[in-house]
Each structure stands twice: as C-alpha cells, then as structure tokens.
C-alpha cells in the first residue's frame, strides 16, 4: 500500500496535476455556488476538456471540480440560504443564522475546516478500505454484479426523489433504453438505429450528460425565469466578519467531526444514498448526542449543527468513490458521470483497476486529499471575491453554459447530428424536470446499461437460460434480498406517511 500511496503522490504532485486540482476546485466552487447547478453539471462541462489530458490528470481535474462544487454549495447555503446542491441543505440550518448574526466569516471557516477534516478522514478510510474491498470483490461473479447493479439502480431511485419512486424507476428504464441504442457488444447487430449511421456506435455518454444536466439546466433557468446569480449580488465583502475560530468552538468541532465523518463515509459507500442523506443523518445524530443547552442552539447558529452536516457531506463524497473504484459500479449520479469519463479514457474501473492502473487508482485517492488542502488554502480567503464573480448576469451565464455544452459535443464528434440529438434530449429532459422526474437515475442507468446487459448475458448463458442464478449463490441472493427490502421499506414509508397525513 505504501508503494501505491507513493505512486499516487508522485502522479498527483506534478505541477500540471496540482494546477488541475486548483483549476478544478476554483471552477467547481463557482458552479457549485449557483443554486440549481451542482457537481454533476460542473463535471459534465469539464469532460470534453479532460479528454485532452491523460486519464490520471483528467480524473484529478474532475475530482477537484467535484470537491469545489460541494464546497461552493456550502458557501451559498451559509451566505445566501440558497443551497447550491441538496447535500448542503442541512448546512443552511445553522450556517445561515450564524451569517445573519454577523458571523458569516466564522461560519465559512467552520464549514471549510469541517469539510477539510471530513474529507481528510474519509480519504484515510478510503485508503484502507478500497484495496481490501478490491480484493474481496475479485470473488464477485457475473450474477453478483448483475444483482449489484439492480441494487444500485433501485437504491438511487428510492433515495433520489422523495415520494417519486415510480418516476425515478421510469427514468432508470429510459436510461437503460438509451444505452441499448447501437451495436450489440457481442454480435455487432445494430439495434434501434433506424438505419441511421450516426447511431451505429450508440449515443455518446457525454452527450446524454450534457443534455440532461448542463443544457437542460440552462433551459430550465430561462423557462422558470430563475436568476441563480441574483442572490450573489447581495453578498457584502465588508460584513463577513472574522474567520477565526476560538478554543471553545474548536473543542466542539473536535467531538463532532470524527463521528460525522464515519456516518458520512458509510452512507456515501451505500449505493444511491450520498451526501444529502449523510448530512441530514449527521445533523440529526448530532442534535441527539449534544447536551440540552447546546440542543437549544440548533437552528439558531450552532457550531455543532454546522460542523456535522459539512463533515458528513464531504465524507460521503469520498465514500461514494468506494463502489466505483472497487466494483466499477457507481453509487451516485456524480460518480456515474466520472465512471463514464473513465470508460471514455479506456479505463475500466473495478477490482483490477488498482493492479492494472495503480497510478490512476492511487492518484484519485491522493488528489482528493490535495483537493481538500487547496480548497482550504485558496477558497477560504477568496470566497467573498469568488462570490463577486458570480454576479455575472444571467444573460451571459446561460449562453456560456449552452456554449460549453454544444462545443463539448462538437469537439468530440465533429458531427452536427450529435448537436441535434443533444438538443432533442435536453428539451425532453427540461420538460420532465418541470414535473419532478429525476435525472440522476437516468444517468446511472445509462452508464450501467452496457455492463448490466453483459453480466446478464454471461449469467444466463452459464445457467443455460435459467433464472436460478439469482438465488444459487448466497451472495447474489443477499444482494437481491437487500434490493427487495429497499423496495418494501420505500413502499411502507410512503404508505405510512400517507396514513399519517
């Protein structure tokens, strides 16, 4: 492992890669601060640029964007009470009241240190857990992988949209359907191409991500007359106050950070759960464990109440890399986008990644830590100025997002059919978003579609067409049982809630 860490450090600490982390963190922070535009949009916009680099550098850039976007989301939660991403909603519960009390600088500092500590601790957990899990996952067979993918898709559908399980499942099926367009991987028979040569190679992953996130996000902002930049204009450079944290506050954070980081990391590892659930759980747990006097402060600017969700959401981000790196199965929409990018580089994540491409495996883990340090050094003092950059009017921001989307697709294919297809998918996605159809399940399903078919093919061929492979092995049966439990729990929760209402 020491050798691996050194390989990772050597790769991540080159001048070019440090520069990439810095650019990624900066760009991610700006996008993450804009309400509605989250890490997935930020990463999607970066993908075409990453293809100009080697895989390790490209992924380091994306990891920087990811952490920057999460941090940016926290900043807008604290300063504007407008969370950029759902994972930072809980941050606003105590961060915004603190800012209203004239302690915005302190709140930002607590958030930054908690994010740093949460990210660092979870990077250490990942450091130890990922190689061991990779070894364990070498014993996984096709039926287990197929069952795991079903679990991942069901879980993301259950967790991604509150009370909209069926809508999310429809999006999962739509994602799998889009993935089935093009040549069959084994027989080369074309499917759903309608004799159009442009569809023979299937629909590009970048195209789907750009259309469903970047482009449809821009169209939604125009359609709903939202102005994500308007709130940033209210940020005052003079009213942030001191960023110093006193001894009493530090003592509180020392207790909160370790327990919240464990919760965050474990929730992040679970497929479909992610930063939102982690931050809410950590916030709830923290309120239960503190004394009555501190409990009273929750919702009014509590240090523990701010530190807990911030630690947990960053820890969950690192946790979500575990299934992607060790099993090759992303647990969240964001890691699905990163998996798609990895596949675009010709790198197949999974248990063998850390043996076949150790420099990629370890450099991602190391760059996470470097990203945390850079976020702390760069962003904390620069936040008020970065927030000022956001005062760019919507009239410029939207065309620029559209520009990066269409250019991204054009430079990848030099084909105007892809531009038309992207516009078509973006229009449908915009309309679906209006009615709360979630997009992350579609992306995850699109990324997993090919792998899922491949594993189902192998399983069915090995069992001679019998579906007994689903319960022949204890591991497969356990994974499927978990999937069934998630569905039952979700149905029960929905019915119980309805009865209560």
């Amino acid at each position, binding site marked *: 492992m020491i050798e691996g860490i050194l390989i990772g450090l050597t790769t991540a600490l080159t001048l070019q890669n440090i520069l990439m982390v810095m650019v990624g963190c900066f760009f991610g922070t700006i996008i993450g601060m804009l309400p509605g535009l989250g890490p997935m949009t930020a990463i999607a916009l970066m993908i075409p640029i990453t293809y100009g680099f080697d895989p390790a550098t490209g992924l380091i850039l994306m990891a920087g964007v990811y952490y920057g976007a999460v941090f940016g989301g926290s900043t807008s939660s604290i300063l504007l009470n407008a969370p950029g991403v759902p994972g930072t909603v809980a941050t606003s519960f105590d961060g915004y009241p603190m800012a209203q009390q004239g302690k915005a600088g302190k709140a930002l500092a607590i958030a930054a240190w908690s994010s740093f500590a949460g990210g660092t601790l979870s990077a250490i957990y990942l450091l130890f857990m990922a190689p061991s899990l990779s070894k364990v996952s070498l014993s996984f067979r096709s039926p287990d992988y197929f069952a795991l993918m079903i679990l991942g898709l069901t879980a993301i559908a259950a967790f991604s949209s509150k*009370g909209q399980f069926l809508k999310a499942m429809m999006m999962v099926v739509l994602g799998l359907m889009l993935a089935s367009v093009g040549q069959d991987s084994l027989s080369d028979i074309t499917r759903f191409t309608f004799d159009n040569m442009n569809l023979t190679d299937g629909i590009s992953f970048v195209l789907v991500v750009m259309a469903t996130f970047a482009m449809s996000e821009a169209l939604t902002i125009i359609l709903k007359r939202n102005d994500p930049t308007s709130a940033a204009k209210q940020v005052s450079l003079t009213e942030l106050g001191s960023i110093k944290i006193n001894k009493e506050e530090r003592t509180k954070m020392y207790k909160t950070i370790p327990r919240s980081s464990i919760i965050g990391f474990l929730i992040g590892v679970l497929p479909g759960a992610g930063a939102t659930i982690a931050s809410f759980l950590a916030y709830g747990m923290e309120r239960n464990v503190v004394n009555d006097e501190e409990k009273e402060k929750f919702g009014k600017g509590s240090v523990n109440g701010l530190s807990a969700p911030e630690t947990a959401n960053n820890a969950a981000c690192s946790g979500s890399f575990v299934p992607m790196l060790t099993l090759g199965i992303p647990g969240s929409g964001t890691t699905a986008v990163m998996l798609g990018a990895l596949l675009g580089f010709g790198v197949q994540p999974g248990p063998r990644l850390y043996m076949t491409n150790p420099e990629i495996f370890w450099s991602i883990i190391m760059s996470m830590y470097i990203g945390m340090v850079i976020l702390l050094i760069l962003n904390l003092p620069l936040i008020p100025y970065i927030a000022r950059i956001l005062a760019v009017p919507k*009239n410029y921001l939207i065309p620029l997002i559209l520009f990066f989307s269409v250019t991204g697709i054009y430079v990848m294919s030099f084909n105007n059919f892809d531009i038309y297809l992207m516009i078509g998918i973006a229009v449908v996605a915009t309309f679906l978003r209006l009615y709360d159809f979630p997009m992350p399940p579609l992306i995850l399903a699109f990324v997993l579609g090919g792998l899922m078919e491949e594993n189902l093919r192998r399983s069915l061929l090995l069992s001679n067409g019998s579906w007994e492979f689903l319960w022949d092995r204890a591991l497969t049966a356990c994974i499927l049982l978990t999937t069934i439990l998630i569905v039952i729990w979700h149905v029960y929760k*929905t019915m119980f809630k309805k009865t209560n209402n």
Partner: protein
Amino acid sequence: MNINTTKIISLLFFIFSAFYLYTAYQIQVFAFDENAPFNARTFPIYLGYAGLFFSGLKLVLPEPNTIKVDHKNLEYKKTAILIVIAIIYGATILKVGYFLTTSLFLFSSYYFLGERRWVLMFLLSFPFVAAFMYLLHGVLDIYLRDPFLQSIGVMG
C-alpha cells in the same frame, strides 16, 4: 377538467415502451442465435416490459402529490428562441466553421436574452471564442475544422 400532466407523461412513456418493445422484437438476430438463452434482443425485450410495467403502475395508481406548474409564469418564448439558435448553430457549423458560428451563436443568445451592452457582448463572443479556440486547438491539440478561417488564411 384539470388534466394531470404526470399521468399524460406516464401514458406517453407507456406508448413509447410499447413501441420500443415492438421494435425490440423486430431486431434481426443470427439464425443460430434465435433460440439461444440470450441474444441481441433479449435485454431490450425485458426493458420494454419494464417500461410498460412502471409507466402502467404510474398510470393506475393514485397521484398523492400532484405537481402543479404555472404555465403562465414560464418563459416559453425565450426558451424556444434559444433552442432555435442552437439548431441553427448545428446546421451551419460544418459549412461555416467553428469560429464564426460559435461567436454568432453566443452574440445572438446574449441579444435575445435581453442584453444590450454591445461592447461586452462583442468581447464575450468573438475574442472569447478565439481564446477558447486557441486553448483547444493550440494548447490541447484538439483539431477544429474551420472553413471560414481557412478561406481567409488564418488557419492552415
């Protein structure tokens, strides 16, 4: 009568799944693969049935939280204009080239979104695209075809 749009979307998805399923059954497979446990049409057929199942459930089950969208407050005109500009961009980029098409795409988007600061609009379109093009073409070595720049001798 108040029509529930989510149900209409579910109905459209149901019809789409039925069409997908029909097309999946039409996929031509090799003769020796026809009766194999798994061939090129197996997975799409399952997907078609899954689509019918979930959209069918959404259609028949009651809708607890009806989503109401206030269409009067939606900005359809500007959205449609932006989409048309993007389509025109797609139609002209191969013939005219990256630089001019992209610059005009940005400039017209700013204009139709209501921007009137001409100098800023110009700076954030033509020079901005030129700089971006230099980054892609010159620094990252990503080839960009541009008949317009080639015709005036700027690009080789």
